[in-house]
């Protein structure tokens, strides 16, 4: 060990410590939101029970992102659950199914807004031609999974909408995913759930 070596090493060490002292907190500061749950569990009123039926979707405006004003509002399609028509979800085994079907307008391909067309009983995305059936399952085009849904409940005759969740092709529930993330087959292991949801 030479004197020069000790001096060089020491300078590098202290420089490194000093840089890490501001660099690591700054990095953590920038990456922090990736690791904290930024979607608070809130229920919002979307209308009276009489507003909805089991045959068609009723569009309602809901606030899905807090604190950004108009940009946080989005259209949500709601209808009453039809036990005869709706397929059973594995997630509902031994439980009461959600009383209302609330479907997001966020296309599961890349997140463009889809709209519901009653004449064909399908959801259609204007961007890349994604088509979903009455239950929001993929009928054609590039989407990789059915349209996301929201939890629903009824309180005092009012329909309330909660957090978003994603479903696979069997309508099994998963934590909310980004559009384009697969939930079926081997693909689902390439798109893990995130701590932020």
């Amino acid at each position, binding site marked *: 060990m030479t004197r020069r070596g000790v001096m060089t090493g020491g300078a590098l060490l202290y420089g490194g410590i000093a840089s890490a002292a501001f660099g690591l907190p700054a990095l953590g500061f920038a990456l922090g939101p990736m690791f904290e*749950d930024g979607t608070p569990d809130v229920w919002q009123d979307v209308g009276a029970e009489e507003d909805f039926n089991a045959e068609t979707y009723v569009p309602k405006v809901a606030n*899905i992102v*807090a604190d*950004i004003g108009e940009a946080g509002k989005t259209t949500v399609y709601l209808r009453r659950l039809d036990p005869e028509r709706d397929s059973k979800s594995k997630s509902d085994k031994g439980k009461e199914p959600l009383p209302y079907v609330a479907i997001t307008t966020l296309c599961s391909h890349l997140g463009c807004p889809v709209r519901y067309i009653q004449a064909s009983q399908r959801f259609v995305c204007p961007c890349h031609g994604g088509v979903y059936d009455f239950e929001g399952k993929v009928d054609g085009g590039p989407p990789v999974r059915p349209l996301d849904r929201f939890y629903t409940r009824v309180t005092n005759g009012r329909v309330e909408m909660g957090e978003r969740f994603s479903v696979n092709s069997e309508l099994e529930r998963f934590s909310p995913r980004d559009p*384009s*993330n697969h939930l079926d087959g081997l693909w689902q292991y*390439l*798109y893990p759930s995130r701590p*932020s*949801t």
Partner: protein
Amino acid sequence: MSKLVPPIPKFLRPAPPRPGTGGPGRNGDEGGNGNGNGNGEPGTAVKLREGAAEGGTQVVGWLDERSGMSPIVRAQLFRKVPKGTNWFYTLGSATLFAFVSQAVTGVFLAMYYNPDPSRAYESAAHITNEVFLGELVRGMHRWGSTVMIILIFLHMGRTFVFGAYKYPRELNWVIGVLLLVLTLAMGFTGYLLPFDQRSFWATVVGVNINASGPVVGPYLADFLRGGAEFGAVSLSRFYAMHMLLIPGLIGALIGAHLYLVAKLGTTAPPWLKAEKKSLSQEKI
């Protein structure tokens, strides 16, 4: 008493008489107004012009004495370029010019822009509709971004077609590719800032394209948005990336890029090399 007075700078002192002229030189005892002292001296205008030229030389000399910059600047400005250098070689400088114009207009746009989700659209509209020349400056920034991306691709194409990426310039090619990626990232982050329907949804889709990458994609999208949803922090995040993080990286890499260009020089066009070979064969 006279010892306490600091010495007069050299350029203010009366110049010693030149051989042959006899009289006192410029800035002489007669007041230094350049009127000269009579017989055979040039007129006022000529003297002023000479004085200005000399003043310029003196400023440069003062700077050079302290910085030693002149050999470096001379090497930059008067370096040899190969035969056959043509207009295609200006595409890199053109891209640099586009970057500088983006930087300047961007700084001034930042004086009026407000990266708050409830104010962003209004402040952008305010720039266009009310600020003096706001439409022009915003328009230059908006169209300049497109121009810069076109120029950077043309510059890349020139480098590729002329084979200018080959040894010893591979490192400069790599830096150039990083600059290309960062320039595209500038376009992506800047597109959100007007915060109208088009820019909002285009960015939502753009972030979701990032999310479609396996394993790291969802985390990358979370990083870009600053959370699971496109929320209040997303806009300020894009703004910080657009005007601080990425321009800083681009500036640093442009420095490295130019250093390598200056150090390695430019290449001759490929057709010239072919001619040279045939010449040497002729000689044999």
